[in-house]
């Protein structure tokens, strides 16, 4: 059990997302950085899909109301447990009464706080994720507030796991240092985030010069960017003719181009359908990179193929499996 002592109005309870209700108009929600969420759960021995808290702005502070193990993944928030620093991508046990504080991040945008057993909120339409537009799921269908008390799902195994976790805890190497992204060596990364994109239905409808800017220029992530979508700013994309789309399904990662020519990347809380033309889709394996791209930083799109996009998904799975093996070994060694 934890009590929220301090939060901005945008922290929410999320799992890997809500599947199978698009036909009722229900979007997927779920963690923006699913890789970080799953990793936090694996570190704790939880199922990958357990619910955790997504924290996009700081400071954030909770008090532990019981002895419990927790994990921090995602953004490199400068974290302290009763003033003692905690490394990023780390799991640790907290004792009743201790206070965890997350300060503004040094890198990355969203931090995930997972608890042993997973956060215990009701499963609504197959998921514990907060559906903000529908006011359901998560913690009473809303974002978190000061004074909220969240419980963890208890089971005998978790108490055992707690005992086995060393006092100093353990961690894993963050995926940004491990997961390759194709032929990036030649491109200076700097503060840019690179994401791979597959062309979508209306890709060929844009002027050649626009396609050149799409791949070749920087795209600023404007402050009007959130879980619904990232609104980008750059050289306006111009279609060869006026495009009219009938309402159709879309998925997180789809890059729509409204009449202004400034693209919008639809994300986890986006409407599940839309009518704007689509120039491309950020591949599923790179959505976590977007989730960790900070406001006002720059994005670059890298053209990829379906086959490469599948290999990238495999690489993500490999990473998670490696973390799984490491976490198991660690637990075994503590016996």
């Amino acid at each position, binding site marked *: 059990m934890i009590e929220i002592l301090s939060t901005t109005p945008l922290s929410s309870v999320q799992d890997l997302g809500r*599947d*199978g*209700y*698009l*036909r*009722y*108009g*229900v*979007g997927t929600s779920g963690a923006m950085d699913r890789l970080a969420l799953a990793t936090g759960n694996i570190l704790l021995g939880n199922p990958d899909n357990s619910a955790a808290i997504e924290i996009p702005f700081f400071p954030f502070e909770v008090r532990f109301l019981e002895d419990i193990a927790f994990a921090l993944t995602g953004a490199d928030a400068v974290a302290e447990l009763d003033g003692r620093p905690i490394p990023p991508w780390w799991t640790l046990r907290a004792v009743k009464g201790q206070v965890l504080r997350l300060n503004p991040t040094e890198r990355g945008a969203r931090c995930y706080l997972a608890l042993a057993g997973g956060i215990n909120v009701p499963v*609504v*339409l197959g998921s514990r994720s907060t*559906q903000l*537009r*529908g*006011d*359901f*799921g998560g913690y009473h269908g809303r974002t978190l507030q000061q004074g909220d008390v969240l419980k963890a799902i208890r089971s005998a195994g978790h108490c055992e796991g707690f005992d086995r976790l060393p006092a100093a805890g353990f961690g894993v190497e963050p995926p940004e240092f491990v997961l390759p992204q194709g032929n990036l060596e030649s491109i200076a990364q700097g503060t840019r985030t690179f994401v791979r994109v*597959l*062309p*979508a*239905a209306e890709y060929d409808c844009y002027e050649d010069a626009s396609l050149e800017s799409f791949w070749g220029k920087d795209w600023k992530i404007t402050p009007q960017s959130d879980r619904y979508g990232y609104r980008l700013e750059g050289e306006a994309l111009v279609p060869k003719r006026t495009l009219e789309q*009938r*309402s*159709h*399904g*879309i*998925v*997180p*990662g*789809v890059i729509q181009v409204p009449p202004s020519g400034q693209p919008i990347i639809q994300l986890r809380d986006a*409407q*599940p*359908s*839309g009518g704007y033309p*689509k120039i491309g*889709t*950020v*591949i*599923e*394996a790179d959505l976590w990179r977007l989730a960790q791209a900070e406001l006002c930083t720059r994005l670059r799109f890298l053209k990829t193929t*379906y086959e490469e*996009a*599948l290999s990238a*998904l495999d690489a993500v799975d490999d990473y998670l499996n490696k973390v799984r093996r490491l976490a198991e070994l660690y637990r075994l060694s503590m016996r």
Partner: protein
Amino acid sequence: MTNTPQPDPSPRISLLGTTGLLFEAPGEMDIHTQRRIWWLARQVETWPCIKEAVPGMSNLMLIFSTPPRNLDSIESELLATWNRAEELHLEGRVVELPVIYGGEYGPHIADVVAHTGLMIEEIVRIHTEPLYIVFALGSHPGYCYLGGMDPRIATSRRKVPVLRLPGGAVSIGGSQTGVSASLGPSGWNTIGHTAMSFFDPLRSPPALLAPGDMIRFRAERIIK
């Protein structure tokens, strides 16, 4: 099955990353095409690599359970299935929605008047006349895309979207009409309000209406 449609060689299939595919039927956005889309959805959702088949307006989005290694075979299977698609006649029910038109509930009815040159009574009469068919659900939980609006009251979308359109708002956007199921942003012109609740996550199914159901708007009151 009535009037077998001729196979059309030019549907469009495009990728939505590695998450799914979008199938777009050629031709008009009418009830005949839509019934074939419903039929296609019923077939495709049983395929092992498909997690969900989601009808749109004369199109179908397929969400992969696992992305197939070979796209060509799923695409040709999809086309073959479309070419033999029949019109699925769904047994829809009729829901009557009492609407208060105009006044504070229909702040943009003046824009529809200005755009169409019709008087409010005439707009309401034309809007309440058809039996609208639910073509698909989307946009937000419980929202229905309707077919059947009279083009005489078509009004272009607003240049600046309304940020907080309340649930129950009856609106016109281009040649379509609809009812918001919950509070949210919208670029459509609000002409009235109904008190119906369209979505309850604790109900099964969670949405009040399904494709094939029909809506009739009844003018409860007109405020000028």
